[in-house]
């Protein structure tokens, strides 16, 4: 007990302001804890008195995978958080990324229900193995804005199970395919998923079969991403859709079937699946930005030929090499990137494919700005010999942007004339001059926001240690040493005949004693005592001399059950604990409020200044008006026509 009070004394004497991090208001500490896993956040309860209740009001709960922990521990922990949290405090975001063997779906449902009843705004549930499917109605909530599910949903189409999410703006659904390959049957999305989502603006679907949908329609949707899904056969009704991303999706021959109804579409991103075929992409009238990632085929001699028709297309980005024909009158910026497209292929193999660039580049003949990344410039340099004999395909080029770190001098002369030769004013630059803001909306085209990886699995520690040749849990080694030191007779008859049985018994001894000794005196009851007495007698039969434990148990019984005064004492102590907790809670809320008050007062001053500025502007304007109309009576500038007209003098 000496250490904490000594430290306090030292701090007081030194007069320094230590431990300032603890003086932060709760909501800033919550912000810090929002980046940590729930386990780490809850463990801050052990840091100091001030930190003790902080986790109970933490509105950001992230549960990740807990390696090296038994399912019972994980379940117990989650139950404890649910029970011991401050129930007046709302939950802002809840993330679960767990294995079903650790957490039963019932517990998850209970937690989700709790969070929803506490104004939950963001929910992320990811179940990593096979489980009983969830009902949609589990997630109905008036406050939920962001929902991300990677689990099995009720697939029975007959059941009228749907959800009501009036505030939802972002939805991300990933399908967990079962272990058997023929479980595709379970991956249909039913229509009720897309009903009752009036405010949805971003939708991302991964790995679903959408072919059974009768309607594919959302009134407010602006961003849609489909990844590895089977496309719906019905018309796509998204009148406000601005960005569309199709990743690894089997595209129909004529894309206009899909795209014609998407009249407002501005950004289209296509990541072509690995089948080799030609594509005809006829874009909606307002499409500004198009990005295509080609599919890479090692051994095919057939390469995709992509024909694009888009009247207003302004920016085109290509990942990979493919032949293109772009019938686009207003093409401005073309961005060619090869970074990572060849994956781990060696340079010598890649060189064979680089020559394909000569099929690709002429497709961009009316581009005004070209941007290359490091790998594409390197590729072009490699094929300089080939480029020497070819005329420049570009006639309207203004700028060619080189990647950072690439010097103009490293461009071969053949490449230089290939790129710049056909355009009179073209130059190499390192930064394109900022003309439009459309370039930024290109980057914006992906639906995936920056998700901080909330689930962190803390490095596990080794669980077992050795005690006299027996393998026990590391936390018990100390316990056994202490028993050996004080009551060596315990192990006097501990035989080593059957080593395995001995180790088992030793572990049992440790677990029981450990649990027994940690029971608070207020929690003792006769049933429990009886149960432990049985355990102790079993252990005594196994050869341990536990008279000292039995003596203690007998004394406790005597104390606890034959003297009612002690019970009364315990009850008073409970009341004291409650009162203490309440006091601490109020004190920290008061400190919080004080800081907030000071902040607010400062903001009030600011608001006053801004108000005064506006008022003096008004006075100026009135006097301007007075001057302009030269009238003594500027009253009628503001008011009603009949003001003072018929009033008595």
């Amino acid at each position, binding site marked *: 007990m000496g250490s904490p009070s000594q430290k*306090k004394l030292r701090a007081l004497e030194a007069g320094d302001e230590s431990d300032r991090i603890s*003086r932060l208001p709760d909501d800033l500490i919550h912000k810090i804890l*929002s*980046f940590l896993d729930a386990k780490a956040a809850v463990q801050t309860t052990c840091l100091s008195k001030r930190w003790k209740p902080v986790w109970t009001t933490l509105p950001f709960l992230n549960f990740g995978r807990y390696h090296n922990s038994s399912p019972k521990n994980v379940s117990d*922990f989650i139950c404890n958080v649910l029970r011991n949290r401050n129930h007046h405090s709302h939950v802002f975001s809840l993330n679960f990324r767990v294995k079903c063997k650790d957490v039963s779906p019932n517990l998850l449902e209970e937690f989700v229900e709790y969070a929803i009843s506490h104004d939950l705004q963001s929910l992320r549930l990811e179940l990593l193995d096979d489980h009983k499917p969830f009902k949609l109605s589990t997630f109905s909530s008036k406050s939920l804005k962001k929902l991300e599910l990677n689990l099995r949903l009720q697939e029975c189409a007959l059941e009228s199970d749907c959800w009501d999410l009036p505030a939802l703006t972002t939805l991300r659904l990933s399908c967990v395919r079962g272990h058997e390959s023929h479980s595709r049957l379970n991956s249909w999305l039913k229509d009720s998923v897309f009903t009752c989502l009036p405010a949805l603006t971003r939708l991302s679907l991964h790995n679903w079969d959408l072919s059974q949908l009768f309607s594919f329609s959302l009134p407010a949707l602006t961003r849609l991403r489909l990844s590895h899904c089977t496309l719906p056969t019905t018309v796509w009704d998204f009148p406000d859709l601005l960005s569309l991303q199709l990743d690894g999706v089997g595209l129909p021959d004529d894309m206009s079937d899909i795209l014609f109804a998407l009249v407002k579409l501005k950004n289209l991103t296509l990541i072509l699946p690995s089948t080799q075929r030609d594509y005809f992409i006829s874009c909606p009238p307002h499409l500004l930005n198009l990005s295509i990632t080609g599919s890479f085929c090692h051994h095919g001699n057939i390469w995709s030929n992509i024909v694009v028709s888009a009247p207003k297309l302004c920016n085109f980005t290509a990942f990979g090499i493919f032949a293109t024909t772009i019938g686009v009158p207003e093409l401005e910026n073309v961005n060619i990137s090869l970074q990572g497209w060849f994956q781990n292929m060696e340079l010598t193999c890649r060189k064979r494919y680089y020559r394909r660039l000569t099929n690709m580049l002429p497709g961009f003949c009316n581009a005004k700005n070209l941007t290359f990344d490091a790998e594409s410039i390197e590729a072009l340099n490699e094929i300089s010999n080939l480029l020497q004999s070819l005329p420049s395909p570009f006639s309207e080029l203004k700028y060619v942007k080189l990647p950072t770190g690439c010097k103009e001098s490293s461009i071969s002369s053949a490449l230089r004339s290939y790129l710049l030769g056909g355009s009179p004013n073209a130059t190499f630059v390192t930064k394109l001059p900022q003309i439009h803001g459309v370039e930024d909306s290109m980057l914006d085209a992906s639906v995936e926001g920056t998700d*901080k990886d909330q689930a962190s699995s803390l490095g596990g520690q080794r669980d077992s240690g050795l005690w006299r040749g027996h393998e026990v849990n590391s936390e018990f080694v100390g316990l056994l040493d202490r028993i050996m030191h004080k009551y060596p007779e315990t192990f006097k008859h501990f035989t080593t005949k059957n080593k395995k049985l001995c180790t088992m018994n030793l572990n049992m001894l440790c677990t029981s004693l450990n649990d027994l000794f940690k029971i608070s005196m207020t929690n003792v009851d006769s049933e429990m005592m009886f149960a432990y007495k049985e355990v102790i007698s079993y252990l005594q039969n196994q050869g341990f001399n536990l008279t000292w434990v039995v003596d203690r148990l007998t004394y406790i019984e005597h104390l606890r059950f034959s003297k009612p005064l002690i019970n009364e004492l315990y009850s008073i102590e409970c009341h004291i604990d409650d009162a203490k907790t309440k006091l601490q809670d109020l004190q920290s809320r008061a400190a919080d409020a004080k800081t907030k008050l000071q902040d607010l007062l400062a903001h009030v001053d600011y608001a006053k200044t801004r108000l005064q500025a506006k008022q003096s502007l008004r006075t100026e304007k009135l006097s301007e008006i007075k001057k302009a109309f030269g009238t003594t009576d500027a009253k009628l500038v503001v008011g009603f026509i009949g003001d003072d007209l018929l009033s008595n003098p």
Partner: protein
Amino acid sequence: MKKLKFIGNPLLQSREKINMSSDKKWLTLKTTEDNEEFVVEESVAIMSNVIKNMVEDGCASSVIPVPRVKGNAMGKIIEFCKKHTEESDEKVLKEFDAEFLNLGPDALYDLMVSANFLEIKVLLDSVTTKVADMIKGKSSEEIRNILKIENDLSAEEIEESRRENCWTRQE
């Protein structure tokens, strides 16, 4: 005597002084707790929502008082905002942030409180992420050392808390 501070390379300060009359707009911010004045470009200062509102309402012609923020924190904040308005390359900014936030917990505390008050989201997010990283994966004792938290709990209280809420595990 007023102390005017120009944030940046001292060699460039004189050049900046000359440029003052050119088309860039400049503001003067004054931390009222310790009366330090800072001259900054408007484009840098408006990274703070609070300052931005003042500028938009025409209250920036004279010195803008900034309560609740200390002088040395203000200096650091302006350095941060300057870098973030000048540089758009994410990689460079990440490296800068890592270097910039290499501070002790007290300084981080000041930055956090000031960024919260001045409503500079980018800075607040960076600092809170940094503190979270500092305590990720660490035991309670280590966290107390890193963040200089005073331990006023008895060993029994700690044990009880741990038992009620966490794994039963020795740390």
